[in-house]
């Protein structure tokens, strides 16, 4: 049969009309458009009874007292613990995301030996063998500043005949080296920010990242005087709310503090310390306002003004940060002023043979760690100071994958803070000794084991489980475990004897001289909790809180004043390379007039190479460009005085 032209046209028209009238095509198209846009996965909510369970969170350096919110027994969020003086209802941005971090796919799922999953028994055998072979060449690096877990680790070291306990560089360490080391004091220095009527934050970014941040913020809000002065090279978040910002270079902070001592002593203040006369002579000759102005650039009348404010107050306090010299100068000034600096006693020990907190802070990690077997507990030294760490065999305890766990020989997953017994004794900076405790809220979602339980299985330290250690700690303190687990903190209003404290006149005179590197501009590194700390990277919900002054796209942003930018020949958005220390960083320039001229401010805590997508590859790691220098007079290492060269790329 042949198809004529006419028949073909008739059929085509008929087919077209037919298709137009049949719904099949249109419904199919409609279905395709719907199905291609469907939610592939529909999140469902869990309903049931809600509860708030008090515990402690160790994501920020000082730790937060939180309540974990649960629905039908499943944790979903955190809120502050009103009953605990560390919180008063607030929490920091890191701990606010604690539960999300607990559920993160970045959790370490099981013990791993050289990248292969092994059982806990195998892990214990491996570590026991390595320990036996290492003799006393064992070291510990702890990222926890406040937990009884440090007693377990230090007792293990003691049982091996080692004292190589290292803390990650922290403010508490600088303060302890100044207070118990240089000045002959005992106990831990604290600051009563709530009841002080004039507060000089000498470099301490106390309302953003320094010390027990949330407790500081609470004290700031409750403080009636409202007289807070922030001194530092950058107008930080702290300076945004203080009544005054005094621009002082980091390396000049100790000299600046002594410059204020000058005015205070001129006003007749003294201390019954053995070396007071020597101290007075040292300051009156070496740290006259004119000399300090020449060395630091801070005008004499600015120092006079700050001194006047402090002298007029009944209960003033100076809070240092950074170097040991700066801390010692601030303590001397506090002793002269006789204000709201407090000294906290240390709570009794739970584990025999454990070190005291001050002993744990003696070793200087910046001078390097070398051991046959190195335990790293919830710290990230391979991110912050990779060049300092050398070990034959590294065992990393952590709940999240980090640069340190990636480089370790054996990785042992710890339960998240909310899945274990966790305690928090007197974070550095609080006004009175306090102890908080949390019991596990849920079972670990991964094959994790408490680091305490694991270590207690390696040596006979008198306990079987970490919970027993915590019980012993509570008993040593004389607190009630049920009350602590119920969310109340144990607070001890007791002050150790302060007689016999000296002003470290002989050391301070030399140590307070500003020492600066040779780079073109000074580097002012700063920490924002939502960006992360040395040990904890930013959390899943935090990246959208990070501002364009820290991160644009995947590039780090450094801030400088317009005069500095002009001098360097850069402008907003310029891509620059900062070189200093042992490396370099790439960054974009932002003009922020709240930076001292000649200084570039860079955020710490970014540029991770291991971790989840929220932190990995975001920005650059400023720790690479910090210069470790030795503060000769105090015998300690410091990052203060770091400088960098800036090149446009």
């Amino acid at each position, binding site marked *: 049969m042949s198809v004529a032209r006419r028949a073909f046209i008739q059929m085509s028209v008929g087919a077209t009309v037919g298709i137009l009238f049949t719904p099949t095509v249109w419904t199919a198209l409609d279905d395709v458009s719907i199905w291609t846009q469907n*939610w*592939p*996965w529909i*999140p469902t*909510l*869990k*309903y049931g009874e*809600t509860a708030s369970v008090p515990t402690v969170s160790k994501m920020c350096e000082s730790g937060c007292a939180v309540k974990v919110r649960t*629905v039908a027994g*499943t*944790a*979903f*969020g955190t809120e*502050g613990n009103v009953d605990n003086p560390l919180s008063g*209802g*607030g*929490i*920091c*941005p890191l701990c*606010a*995301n604690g*539960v*999300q971090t*607990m*559920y*993160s*796919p970045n959790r370490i799922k099981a013990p791993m030996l050289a990248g292969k999953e092994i059982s806990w028994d195998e892990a214990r055998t491996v570590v026991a063998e390595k320990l036996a072979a290492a003799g006393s060449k064992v070291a510990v690096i702890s990222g926890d500043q406040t937990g009884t877990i440090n007693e377990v680790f230090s007792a293990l070291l003691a049982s091996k005949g080692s004292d190589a306990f290292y803390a990650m560089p922290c403010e508490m360490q600088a303060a302890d080296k100044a207070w118990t080391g240089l000045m002959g004091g005992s106990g831990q220095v604290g600051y009563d920010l709530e009841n002080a009527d004039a507060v000089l934050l000498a470099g301490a970014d106390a*309302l953003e990242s320094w010390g027990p*941040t949330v407790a500081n*913020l*609470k004290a*700031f*809000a409750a403080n009636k005087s409202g007289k807070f002065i922030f001194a530092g090279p950058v*107008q930080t*978040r*702290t*300076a*945004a*709310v203080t009544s005054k910002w005094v621009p002082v270079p980091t390396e000049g902070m100790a000299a600046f503090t002594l410059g204020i001592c000058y005015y205070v002593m001129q006003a007749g203040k003294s201390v019954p310390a053995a070396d007071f006369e020597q101290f007075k002579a040292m300051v009156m000759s070496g740290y006259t306002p004119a000399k300090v102005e020449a060395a630091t650039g801070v005008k004499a009348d600015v120092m006079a003004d700050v001194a006047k404010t402090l002298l007029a107050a009944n209960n003033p306090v100076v809070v240092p940060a950074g170097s040991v010299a700066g801390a010692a100068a601030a303590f001397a000034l506090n002793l002269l002023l006789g204000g709201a600096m407090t000294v906290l006693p240390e709570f009794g020990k739970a584990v025999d043979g454990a070190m005291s907190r001050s002993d744990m802070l003696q070793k200087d990690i910046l001078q390097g760690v070398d051991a046959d077997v190195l335990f790293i507990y919830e710290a990230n030294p391979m991110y912050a100071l990779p060049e300092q760490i050398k070990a034959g065999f590294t065992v990393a305890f952590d709940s999240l994958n980090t640069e340190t766990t990636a480089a370790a020989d054996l990785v042992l997953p710890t339960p998240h803070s909310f899945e274990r017994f966790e305690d928090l004794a007197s974070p550095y900076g609080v006004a009175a000794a306090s102890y908080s405790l949390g019991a596990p809220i849920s079972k670990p979602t991964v094959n994790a084991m408490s680091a305490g339980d694991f270590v207690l299985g390696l040596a006979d330290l008198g306990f079987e489980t970490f919970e027993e250690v915590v019980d012993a700690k509570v008993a040593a303190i004389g607190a009630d475990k049920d009350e602590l687990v119920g969310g109340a903190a144990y607070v001890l209003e007791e002050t150790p004897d302060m007689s016999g404290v000296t002003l470290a006149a002989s050391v301070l005179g030399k140590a307070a001289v500003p020492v600066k590197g040779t780079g073109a501009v000074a580097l002012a590194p700063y920490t*924002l*909790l*939502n960006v992360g700390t040395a040990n904890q990277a930013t959390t899943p*919900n*935090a*990246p*959208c*809180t*990070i*501002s*364009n002054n820290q991160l644009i*796209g995947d590039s780090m942003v450094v801030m400088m*004043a317009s*005069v500095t930018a002009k001098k360097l020949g850069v402008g907003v958005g310029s891509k620059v390379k900062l070189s200093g220390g042992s490396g370099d960083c790439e960054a974009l320039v932002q003009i*922020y*007039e*709240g930076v001292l*001229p000649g200084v570039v401010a860079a955020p710490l805590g970014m540029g991770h190479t291991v971790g989840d*997508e*929220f932190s990995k590859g*975001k920005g650059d790691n400023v720790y690479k460009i910090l210069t470790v220098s030795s503060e000769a007079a105090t015998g300690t290492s410091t990052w203060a005085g770091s400088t960098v060269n800036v090149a446009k790329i």
Partner: protein
Amino acid sequence: MQTKEFKIKWGMVIDIDKCTGCGACMVGCQVENNIAPMTKKDPYNYVQALTTDRDDAANKLRTLTWLTVYELSNGKTFPEHEVAYLPRPCMQCGNPACVPVCPVIATDKNEEGGIVSQIYPRCIGCRYCMAACPYHARYFNWWDPLWPEGMDKGLCPNASPRPRGVVEKCSFCHSRYLKAKDKVRAEGGDPMNLPDGAYTTACADICPTKAITFGDLNNPEHKVHDLAKSKNAFRLLEKLGLAPQVYYMSEREWVRKQGDNYNGNGGHGAPATNHG
């Protein structure tokens, strides 16, 4: 246009002199309201090789931040420079610009309490409301919410997740209001007269300096009632006449002035006194 008045008017007074911009409120808000972390990769996208990545938090135009902290600068150079931080939730305007433009009545202000509603299933994603809102308080879901593997276990029971293609905004943690009323009813109290603090938002709860105070602006027993009338209180873009229920306060004059910078310098957009 008339300002809608209610017997109860939930509002906030934010003390800028206490805000350090730490971001805890923003994180708390996201957790409370099930705002998913921004992820680039979509494990459910089986043709990933053919499509572009999703946006992560680096793209600030695509993030969902019902509460955003802005940085304010007095604009001066060193050493006169000053900085302040301003958290911005939805203003829950008495005379909202977003409501009349919505073609499907997905957003309305008609519930006792004065919270501007957002009905996600009704929203068609036209984004007229986003264009209308002078506070940039509304956000569009450019992507389906996606929690990294395992993280969907910890969803908050207070807010249902929204699909892509709809607009969302701060609701003053509305389900907390419902719960507070239920609780008071169960205890035999009057849900129309909640005591101060019985209903607060997640951001006000979590703020370490308690810079955010939340309560009923009409109830003299609530702290916000007096705070909103204090001499340093101001509202953002007050001259637009949208009557926001969120107040700010600062002792710093330059901060207060920036609250209404729309009419700054008396030039462009100055009060319409000389209109014919």
